């Protein structure tokens, strides 16, 4: 619990790190109606594609320098030496980021979906999709961020972006399934299954990668 609280405090103090991605997400969502003709049907057509891409970009921004500060001031090195369960620390760090950034973005997704489509049922079903996909994207970009720890976050984002594309395909299908009321639970379960594999494997992989950086 202490590690959770410590990571929470660390992120809370770095206001720019957690508010920044949320604000970018909100700005994209607000800017969207300005770029299409103001007809409700036109807005609805491309809304969900934009929503998933915005979540993807926000998560990419959130993990920009997730380890960089700790790497530069030697905290990472000290943590690896002093804590035996380094992968669990990584998992907790990712969870805190999701709690502080992913969940608010998912809530805003629900609100924007409700505002644009004016359909409570669809918006309620979109919410769990947003929660799960934000956690998946966060894990993937943390992996990329660890790979390109001291080489800038762009490289990490580029090389891990292809891994996020299948999730985007499933999300696209998910929205169609929700709109037509068919098989959306299967797709939600598919995402949940993928998430469970990712959250158990990524912390271990990331910890090995960080150790390779520090060797």
């Amino acid at each position: 619990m202490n590690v959770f609280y410590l990571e929470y405090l660390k992120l809370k103090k770095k206001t720019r790190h957690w508010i920044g991605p949320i604000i970018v997400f909100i700005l994209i969502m607000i800017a969207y109606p300005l770029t299409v003709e103001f007809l409700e049907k036109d807005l609805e057509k491309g809304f969900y594609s934009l929503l998933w891409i915005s979540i993807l970009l926000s998560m990419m921004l959130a993990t920009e320098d997730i380890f960089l500060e700790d790497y530069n001031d030697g905290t990472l090195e000290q943590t690896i030496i002093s804590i035996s369960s380094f992968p669990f620390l990584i998992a907790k760090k990712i969870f805190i980021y999701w709690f502080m950034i992913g969940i608010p973005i998912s809530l805003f997704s629900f609100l924007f979906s409700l505002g644009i489509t004016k359909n409570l049922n669809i918006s309620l079903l979109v919410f769990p999709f947003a929660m799960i996909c934000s956690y998946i994207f966060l894990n993937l970009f943390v992996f990329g961020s660890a790979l390109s720890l001291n080489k800038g976050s762009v490289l990490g984002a580029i090389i891990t972006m292809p891994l996020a594309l299948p999730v985007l395909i499933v999300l696209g299908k998910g929205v169609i399934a929700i709109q037509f009321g068919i098989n959306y639970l299967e797709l939600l379960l598919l995402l949940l299954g993928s998430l469970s594999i990712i959250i158990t494997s990524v912390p271990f992989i990331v910890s090995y990668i960080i150790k390779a950086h520090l060797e």
Partner: protein
Amino acid sequence: MYKYIFYFSLFIYIFSLVWGVLFTQEDFVQGNSFRIIYLHVPASFLSQSIYAAMAISSVIYLIWRVKLSAYLILAMAPIGALVTFLALFSGSVWGIPTWGTWWQWDARITSTLILFIMYLGLISLHNSFSNHEKADKLLSWLVIVGFVNIPIIKKSVDWWSTLHQSASITLTDKPTIDPSMLYPLIGSIIGFFGIVICLIIISSKVQIFKREKTKSWIKDYV
């Protein structure tokens, strides 16, 4: 030795290509356009096989620290990218007369495009580090994680409804392709496979020379 394998493979490939393109009958649905399979199928097959070989090499490198595995991964990545590009390009050319479009965002084509981007990402990741040993380790991890895309490509035609047809040749079932088209296809796969293997050997030699250039045995060898 590999030079002979290369020329022999090249001979088999050209022979199969000529046999398939000039001497097999037209397909009753696709007409002559099907003949691109003698490039498309070997390239698609090898684009995934090379990645699988890279993943095996990565595991070997991370567990047993065999340097040759790291050199092999580096040697295979650009060749894999080239072969994947060939698969995508030939697929697009085939798509125009068959589907009426050169590109479709369906599962098989998109996942193959992801594979191509993965290859480019692997190359750029390694090039961005000056410490070779660190770069090898990071590259190996990325290859292993990226391997998740291979079963997705393989099963994409079964899991999603796509324009792409399902596999005509499998290990378990009888081929659904006519023998007159099948034999030159098998020949072209074998020939293409041999050519790619030789290219990987040459590329690996280049990697070994580049990385071991300060060692005395290299100076003696050269």
